[in-house]
């Protein structure tokens, strides 16, 4: 009997202490709520209310029917898909060479590419003006060589200029998880396969690619998320007919002061990003692969 009386407090003591200690999460959570979730709620409220302060879907109906928005959505998705595919291919090729056809200084090259993660994204867009722009080195060389009067290479101020810039900027995000994954593949497995007569391409297809699949999926979905949200590159390329959702939000809010429309587009853009982020988390937890650079 005495035991029964004594045991409950003894067991609830640590539990209550743990509950009390869990409160330590409150200060950073409050900061996040006030600075992040509160503004998000206001965006959503602004998107869903009419001028008469009642709930309405009219704002959405107007935006969803506008050609500007539909073209923005189309460009956002097609640029993101194209750029992410480009990143996957380029990142796979670079990682493959660095990991499996190593040369002196291969690690250094890998780290050089990795530093691109910390550089501002618009650096590449600006640099491309000097390379592929109408007065850039490529066009000038071609015009001098073939005595042309017009610049022959004219893709920079279109969707493809944005795609190529994004491929350059976001390939490191594929290479990080991929190189980590390649370092765990047994080299003896590859050596045995090739001693048994497997060709290099066959080894890549049958051994390396399956092993790299989780890392490719994680990196690819991260790239999709980042390219959907990319703003600096699109702004710096400044192609008139390439409008993405973030560009559209900026135009509506800052140039036209049309906050309700900007909020509606922001809600759609955030929903798209959160969906992609959910995919990324699901891929990472399903494959148990290494987290890519985002977290």
């Amino acid at each position, binding site marked *: 009997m005495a035991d029964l009386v004594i045991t409950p407090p003894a067991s609830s003591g640590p539990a209550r202490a743990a509950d009390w200690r869990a409160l330590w*999460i409150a200060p950073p*959570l409050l900061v996040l709520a006030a600075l992040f979730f*509160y503004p998000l709620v206001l965006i959503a409220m602004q998107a869903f209310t009419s001028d008469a302060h009642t709930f309405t879907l009219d704002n959405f109906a107007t935006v969803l029917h506008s050609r500007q928005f539909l073209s923005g959505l189309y460009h956002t998705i097609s640029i993101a898909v194209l750029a992410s595919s480009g990143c996957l291919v380029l990142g796979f090729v*670079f990682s493959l060479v660095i990991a499996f056809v190593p040369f002196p200084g291969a690690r250094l090259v890998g780290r*050089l590419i990795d530093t691109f993660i910390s550089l501002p994204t618009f*650096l590449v867009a600006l640099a491309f003006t*000097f390379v592929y722009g109408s007065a850039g080195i490529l066009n000038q060389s071609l015009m001098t060589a073939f005595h042309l009067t017009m610049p022959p290479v004219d893709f920079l101020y279109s969707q493809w200029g944005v795609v190529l810039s994004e491929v350059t900027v976001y390939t490191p995000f594929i290479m990080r998880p991929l190189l980590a994954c390649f370092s765990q593949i047994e080299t003896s497995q590859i050596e045995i396969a090739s001693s048994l007569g497997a060709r290099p391409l066959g080894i890549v297809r049958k051994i390396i690619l399956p092993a790299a699949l989780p890392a490719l999926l994680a990196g690819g979905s991260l790239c999709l998320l980042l390219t959907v949200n990319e703003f600096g590159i699109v702004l710096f390329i400044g192609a008139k007919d390439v409008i993405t959702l973030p560009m559209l939000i*900026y135009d509506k809010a800052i140039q036209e002061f049309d*906050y309700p429309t900007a909020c509606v587009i922001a809600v759609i853009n955030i929903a798209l990003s959160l969906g992609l982020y959910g995919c990324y988390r699901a891929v990472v937890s399903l494959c148990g692969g290494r987290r890519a650079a985002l977290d």
Partner: protein
Amino acid sequence: MLLWTRWGRLSTWGFAALLFAAVYGLPVAMIALASVSGQWNGILPSHLTFAHYARIVHSESLAQLRVSVLTGALASAAALVSGTWAALALRQIRGARRRVLDIAFFVPSAVPSVSIGLGLLVAFSQRPLLLNGTAAIVFVAHFLLISAFTYGNVTAGLARVAPEYGEVAQSLGARPLYALWRVTLPLVAPYLLAAFSLSFALSMGELGATLMIYPPGWVTLPVGIFALSDRGAIFDAATLTMVLGAGTLLVLLALSRLSNRAALR
């Protein structure tokens, strides 16, 4: 080793080197060249000059660089404190609550920066908190955009340090705060430094949210670069981009050396 023939290896390297030079080498080389070129009408600039760099010192760009460094340092420090606090506090929580909170701290990194800027604009242009038009709103935006990265880095670091170290210290009579300050935090110090340098770099290059909210008196370097490039002064823009990129890399290098030393200790 995937390729055994000499020819196969050499041709692969040649191909990869060409690809690397085209994708990464050429753009960086061109922007570096543009920053020192005087006149550029032909294939290559006619003469080289440091006039663009000299002009930075006498223009508003220097003030913009100062604003960027200040914003980056303050926002990164705040994000480091809040991220470390959250990661440490979340260690005490288990189960579904932990997973939900974990996602809550990561979610800011999944929201487009322009939308974060729009949200701040909508929320803080009205009562109870009027921040629009002050430098504070820029700090808040940068803090939000980098907080998830800091939190993620610190969490990853904490996961590699067994919680037993702190518990042993406490069982030996150390107060919780003392154990945290003298045992746990020094163990994760390299991760804290890495988190700080990554968030500082991100903040230095941030454009989307800043362009939405910056007040006239608090112009960061990326906004200044955009203004220059928009006006057509692309050589000055290239010069400033070089300064921004090189400066960021230098800070990262210094911090990584510091972090290596902390890891050795």
